[in-house]
């Protein structure tokens, strides 16, 4: 008897256009079904719970602003990451680059609190970008020079950045008038990233995200550099024959994604939180990885995916308030979604055939079951 590993993949002759466009939507529907089942198991009415989670946050002006605030860092980080992933560089440490961007940017108001001018915000933003870039540079250089695995180094740097932030807000950056609460001074009007519309809190981070999406879309589809990134990612040897340097590509994509994550970090600190705190991110850097894949590593797709994942955070808060469910459920939804996205993406390049017992194809030997 064959053991029952009766799923078999068959490469499609051409990629399926249908699944290329619809696999993210199928994944979303599957996540909703799984989420509904989870709520049911927890003793809630699944329809009501899903309504509270995914629809209610879209019904108020202020929640829409919150949605934009949460989606802008996700979109910005994920657009940077899609360059990394497209070129086969696994930058998993965007969370750390985000944190270092926040710290570097906040250092300006902390060190120069008296400095009030229009120029302070651009300086903070540039400083944040540099902070993210420096942090991203480390795994890139280690990979290029020593061949060190960038997945592990970039990830370790997240923990180091987290501890560094914790130290700095309790030590050198602590507000002396903060009654011993950890955290920097609250930013003044000049140091806060302004709101875009008068109707709510959405700040210019969203504008940066939109610009980032357009820049990366242009880079990938219209420039030689973008072509180089795609070639290096899909066929590294062919890329080398064409004279593309994998090392330079690694450096480039890490620097860009670090810059984007750093910008997202300072935009969050300056625009949304308005001071540096021991924790400045609910895991945006990791969630952005899901955003990148849900958006099928395409900047325009990422824009939509960022909004969906931001909704998963807002929904988590919503069910915590109205159904008394821990907001950890957001992580569950996010993890499930990534699973479904990856699974559905298989359908783009492969057909799934069920094993002999289902019997709708009976050709050839049982190779696929191994």
């Amino acid at each position, binding site marked *: 008897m064959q053991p029952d590993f009766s799923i078999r993949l068959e490469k499609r002759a051409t990629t399926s256009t249908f699944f290329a466009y619809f696999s993210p939507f199928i994944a979303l529907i599957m996540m909703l079904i799984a989420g509904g089942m989870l709520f049911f198991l927890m003793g809630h009415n699944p329809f009501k719970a899903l309504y509270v989670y995914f629809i209610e946050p879209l019904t108020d002006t202020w929640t829409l602003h919150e949605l934009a605030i949460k989606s802008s860092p996700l979109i910005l980080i994920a657009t940077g990451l899609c360059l990394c992933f497209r070129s086969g560089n696994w930058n998993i440490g965007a969370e750390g680059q985000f944190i270092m961007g926040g710290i570097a940017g906040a250092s300006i108001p902390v060190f120069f609190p008296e400095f009030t001018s229009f120029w302070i915000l651009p300086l903070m933003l540039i400083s944040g970008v540099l902070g993210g870039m420096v942090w991203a540079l480390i795994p890139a250089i280690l990979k290029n020079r020593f061949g060190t695995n960038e997945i592990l180094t970039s*990830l370790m740097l997240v923990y180091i950045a987290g501890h560094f932030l914790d130290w700095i807000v309790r030590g050198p950056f602590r507000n002396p008038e903060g009654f011993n609460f950890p955290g920097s001074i609250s930013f003044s009007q000049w140091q806060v990233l302004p709101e875009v519309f008068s109707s709510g809190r959405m700040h210019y981070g969203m504008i940066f995200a939109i610009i980032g999406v357009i820049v990366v879309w242009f880079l990938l589809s219209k420039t030689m550099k973008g072509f180089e990134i795609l070639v290096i990612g899909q066929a590294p040897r062919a890329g080398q024959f064409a004279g593309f340097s994998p090392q330079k590509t690694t450096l480039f994509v890490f620097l860009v994604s670090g810059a984007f994550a750093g910008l997202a970090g300072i935009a969050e600190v300056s625009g949304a939180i308005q001071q540096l705190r021991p924790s400045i991110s609910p895991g945006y850097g990791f969630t952005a990885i899901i955003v990148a894949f849900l958006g099928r590593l395409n900047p325009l797709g990422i824009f939509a995916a960022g909004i969906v994942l931001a909704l998963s955070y807002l929904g988590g808060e919503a069910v915590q308030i109205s159904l008394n469910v821990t907001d950890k459920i957001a992580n569950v939804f996010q993890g499930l979604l990534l699973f479904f996205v990856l699974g559905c993406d298989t359908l783009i390049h492969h057909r799934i055939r069920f094993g002999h017992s289902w019997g709708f194809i009976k050709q050839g030997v049982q190779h696929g079951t191994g």
Partner: protein
Amino acid sequence: MGLVEAILLTVFTAATPLLIAALGELVTERSGVLNLGVEGMMIMGAISGFAFAIYTGNPYMGALAAIIIGVLFSLLFAFLTISLVTNQVATGLALTILGLGLSGLWGEAFIGVPGIKLQPIIVPLLSDIPFFGKLFFQQDIIFYFSILLLIGVSWFLFKSRAGLVLRAVGDSHTSAHALGLSVIKTRYLAVMFGGACSGLAGAHLSLVYTTQWIENMTAGRGWIALALVVFASWRPNRVLIGAYLFGAVGIAQLHIQALGFKIPTQFLSALPYLATIVVLVIISQNRRLTMVNTPASLGKGFVADK
């Protein structure tokens, strides 16, 4: 009990989960599958071990449940990466994110609840040996198991036929497939073994190391276990050295704090992660060593030709 004894004991306790998780991942990677979900499987092991110890009143049942949950959780990863040939890096991350979420959800009810400790098993006679008796023969069952696991994995990989098959599959899945070996089945089993080990390693944290449930209590240990496999260049004996080295680094920071050095605690807490980077750099410099031992098909999906 002397100070040295006491310090070494804490090192042993800190090293055990790293050793178990890294050995499991080593077997998985030897079959050619890179499972980055160790952190997620460990945290699921930690919460299920803790919860089932309380449900049943028996910490051994907790450890058993952690193993089972670890296997079930790893099957999710196996199905995607092996049957659906998804990207292993991304799928492993999904497993970690899901694990952190699910464990948080499940553990909500256990925050602040005192856990049940897995009591040490004192080996008669041997435990009376001065110094060594205390270290090696008055430990909990998971510690003893970790040593057996090390011996078992070494034997399995290099002395048994099944181990040869596993390594063949990891080094060249196409050749292994051509020889009639079952790539899919081997990899499923290897991933499940990794899941069992990660689950047990997690249970060690919540049943021996701290005996309480803290959200995200694995604190990156799963990732360090992954780094240990690279550090060990896929050799079980070197995993042992690495795990105890890292256990020592983790404990050293506590003792440095206790001795009252004027170093911020956060810097000391960051030490294990920094050490991981340094060690990875040193190891990867020696390219020949890593090249020889890295399973050649590591991280590559397998689709059989027609």
